[in-house]
């Protein structure tokens, strides 16, 4: 068998190997390889996607070279098409086809079909009447679902309960779908009995103007399987109605079969005009229209899921890499064109699959907190973050920096070891000890401890919704303090401390834990926690309350306590904070001395890189030590206007200061 044609698939790496093997046939361009025009029957110059045949003399002369080129292609994109027995006179045949079937002639025809369909679907009455005969509700539910889908077929679905429906009115309808279950030994459901009696009587009206289809529900374990549906199907036919889609009999697992029936029945009934005539020529067009060009997917409940795809976005992915063997770290950058609807997790999977199998990240379900990473500073669950939502509106390619969660040891790349958190949780003894309290007996006879709803809601609000491992990373200081228990452990402690079910003794123990040097007072700044979307203001507020409780428990002793106390004191004194007082009271003589020797004081005095200010103030700091530390601090603050108001507010709300 000789060669008939040769073409190039996508993926050419332009290595020139084919051109070297068969320069008369292949020509490597900047980004792919073309089959030369003078060897092809169609005279084209491209990758030959159309698989146009090669000229006879080319095949005779260069077959071996072409096969060598295909064998030598490192990415196997050169595809050789072998000749079949009836392709001997291929040159003439192809020419004829091209002449007889001009492409241009087809276009108007397609256009006309579409225009015709639109006109058809918008003309006249487009009602689809869906009757259900239901004992347990399944048929009713299906009828309701199909009515909602009818719109995709240009129909207006109306659901009718068979119970009490007039058979004459039914006979006047042009499109009817029946969904009916079978009850007992082949009996109609209760709500269908009366209509069935009317339909099966001698006086039943003629239904020759009606197009119909029946979906029958039943159970194969019964002798008369789907008898009711069969009865309706047969009787409507006897009365002259036109069965446009065959009946489908479903067993107890009916969902898949019912969905298939609906697709067919809705298509066929849609092709029926308001006179009851079936337009077969429109059936395929309606089917394609309803399929939406295969851009939609079937939902589990038989609904059509909306198309959620988005255009491709240019993305620069900068991914933190760490090699534990070499102990080296850095950043790898991929320039990708990714569909906007892709999640970050899917993107990482794609990169791992197609570009770098060594890329390491934690895979899991979309809401799994173990998968969390940092994306441009924002702690993110990559399984729920679509690429298109990560853009901040800047023009140009989306630039994403992916890093592992802070506060943990990195295992490799984006994978971290959550062991540090486990250890801190053990360290903090996060158990709950209940106090003895009143209980009430429930209607079932069990004893339960009641809780005030407002207290329960407050506790719930404080709870961490996205997992302890994520909250632990929301602190900006956690990565810089080995001993700090972290916000997650502190929040857990605080929730237990505020839980009214906690015993008094345990609450005191928690106070001591929270007031310790490694607990909430070790958090240098709560603002970063509040701004992380996976933590939020409620968590920040709860941790702030925990801080207040810890400070009170410690009697505002220690540097942290003094800082807060004297800050408040100076505000009451003048309405303004006095940093001179703060330095003096919080750091004390030793602290000030430390600043003096460490260069901090000198830097403050000289205003090293800061600008401006009057030197006289710096000199003042020198002549009146230790007060006046700072580049230009005031010894005494001028009071704000109406300072008495400030004092009055203090006295009204907190007379401690």
């Amino acid at each position, binding site marked *: 068998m000789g060669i008939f044609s040769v073409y190039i698939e996508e993926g050419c790496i332009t290595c020139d190997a084919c051109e070297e093997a068969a320069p008369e046939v292949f020509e490597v361009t900047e980004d792919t390889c073309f089959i030369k025009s003078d060897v092809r029957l169609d005279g084209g110059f491209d990758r030959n996607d159309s698989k146009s045949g090669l000229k006879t003399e080319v095949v005779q002369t260069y077959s071996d070279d072409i096969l060598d080129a295909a064998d030598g292609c490192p990415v196997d994109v050169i595809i050789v098409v072998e000749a079949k027995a009836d392709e001997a006179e291929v040159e003439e045949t192809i020419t004829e086809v091209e002449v007889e079937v001009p492409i241009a002639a087809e276009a108007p025809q397609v256009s006309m079909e579409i225009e015709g369909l639109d006109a058809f679907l918008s003309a006249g009455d487009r009602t689809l009447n869906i009757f259900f005969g239901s004992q347990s509700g399944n048929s009713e539910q299906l009828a309701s679902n199909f009515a909602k889908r009818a719109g995709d077929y240009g129909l207006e679905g109306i659901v009718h309960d068979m119970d009490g429906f007039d058979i004459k009115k039914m006979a006047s309808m042009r499109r009817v779908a029946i969904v009916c279950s079978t009850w007992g030994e082949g009996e109609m459901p209760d709500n269908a009995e009366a209509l069935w009696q009317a339909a099966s009587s001698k006086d039943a009206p003629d239904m020759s103007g009606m197009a119909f289809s029946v979906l029958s529900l039943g159970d194969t374990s019964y002798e008369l399987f789907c008898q009711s549906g069969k009865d309706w199907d047969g009787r409507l036919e006897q009365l002259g109605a036109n069965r446009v889609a065959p009946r489908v009999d479903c067993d107890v697992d009916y969902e898949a079969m019912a969905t298939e029936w609906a697709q067919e029945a809705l298509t066929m009934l849609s092709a029926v005009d308001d006179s009851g005539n079936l337009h077969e020529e429109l059936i395929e067009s309606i089917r394609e229209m309803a399929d939406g060009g295969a851009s939609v997917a079937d939902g589990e409940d038989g609904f059509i899921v909306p198309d959620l795809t988005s255009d491709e976005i240019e993305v620069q992915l900068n991914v933190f890499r760490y090699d534990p063997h070499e102990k080296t770290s850095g950043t790898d950058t991929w320039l990708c064109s990714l569909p906007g609807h892709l999640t970050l997790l899917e993107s990482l999977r794609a990169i791992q699959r197609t570009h770098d199998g060594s890329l390491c990240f934690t895979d899991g379900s979309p809401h799994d907190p173990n998968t969390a990473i940092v994306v441009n500073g924002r702690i993110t669950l990559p399984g729920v973050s679509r690429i298109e939502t990560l853009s901040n509106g800047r023009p140009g390619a989306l630039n994403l920096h992916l890093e592992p969660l802070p506060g943990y040891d990195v295992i490799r790349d984006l994978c971290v070891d959550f062991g540090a958190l486990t250890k801190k949780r053990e360290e903090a003894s996060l158990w709950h000890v209940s106090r003895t309290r009143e209980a009430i007996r429930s209607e079932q006879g069990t004893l339960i401890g009641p809780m005030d709803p407002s207290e329960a809601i407050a506790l719930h609000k404080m709870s961490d919704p996205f997992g302890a491992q994520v909250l632990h990373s929301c602190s*900006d200081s956690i990565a810089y303090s080995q001993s700090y228990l972290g916000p997650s452990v502190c929040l857990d402690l605080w929730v237990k401390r505020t839980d009214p079910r906690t015993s008094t003794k345990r609450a005191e123990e928690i106070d001591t834990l929270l007031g310790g040097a490694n607990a909430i007072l070790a958090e240098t700044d709560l603002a970063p926690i509040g701004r992380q979307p996976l933590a939020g203001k409620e968590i920040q507020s709860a941790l702030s309350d925990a801080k*207040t409780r810890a400070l009170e428990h410690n009697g505002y002793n220690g540097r942290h306590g003094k800082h807060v106390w004297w800050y408040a004191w100076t*505000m009451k004194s003048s*309405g303004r*904070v006095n940093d001179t007082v703060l330095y003096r009271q919080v750091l004390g003589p030793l602290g000030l001395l430390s600043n003096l020797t*460490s260069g901090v004081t000198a830097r403050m005095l000289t205003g090293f890189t800061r600008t401006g200010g009057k030197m006289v103030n710096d000199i003042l700091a020198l002549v009146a030590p230790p007060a006046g530390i700072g580049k230009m601090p005031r010894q005494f603050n001028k009071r704000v206007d109406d300072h008495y108001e400030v004092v009055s507010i203090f006295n009204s709300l*907190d007379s401690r200061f």
Partner: protein
Amino acid sequence: MPIRFAYHPGNVAHSSAPEVDETMRAACRSLDIELIDMPGATSCGAGILGQANRRLQITLNARTMSIAEDLGMDIITPCATTAATLFEDLMMLKADSSLMGEVNRTLEKTTGRVLEGSIKIRHLLQVILEEIGIENFSKKVKNPIPSPLAPYYGPNLQQVGLIGGDDVFDPWYMESVIEAGGGDPIRYASRTSSAGTPGIFSEEQTVLRQSANILSDAKTMGARMMISACTLSHGVLDIYQGKASRSTGLNTNLPVIHFCEYVAFLTGNFPTRLAMLKTRVAVIGD
């Protein structure tokens, strides 16, 4: 026609950072922003007062905001911490009518004032981007600073709702100002991270590591100077940087100026100070 704002200079501009107040006033003059002083305004509490008594901090800030309401103006401040604290307290009051009622009862009883909650809190950076416009701003630049410059935002200003249209974690507002000022904005990971400033007295070692990381990060990316939107963080990043370097072993040697100083220099104010700063930028470094 100038834009008018009630002016809150921040927590320490009256004391250890007067350069912020000086340059804020000069910058605003150049940008046609009229600052109306609020001599009765108190410190915002910076979240520190709130650790002692949150209701007290909210009530004092409600008093300050009611002063601005009486003037019929929004508040402008050069301090990120003040902007964030006032904003958070205002949002809390607006979201909780019973809290607003209780605070107003205290305010009325002690001062005769009432807060309606009708004002907004703005940082100078936001006003430049959202009210003046970056194109208009670039026309007012008289002394460009063509250097690689690292913007430092900190976490306080970068909160949803506070900083308008900017991205909270991947901001571009200050980068736009730097570009308009002829500079090359340096993108580095920690530009919205906390320098740990509230903990400088009590958790000094942690704060030194935090601030050293920010400075080193910016320096590694090629910055020749840092511009801070936060007055308090500015102090830590500048004053403690030598100690931070010795504590961590990182290279933190980088001039840090406040955003107001930067805008004032760009718009032609304090040419002598700018000359000194340029000299320092040229001298400091490796």
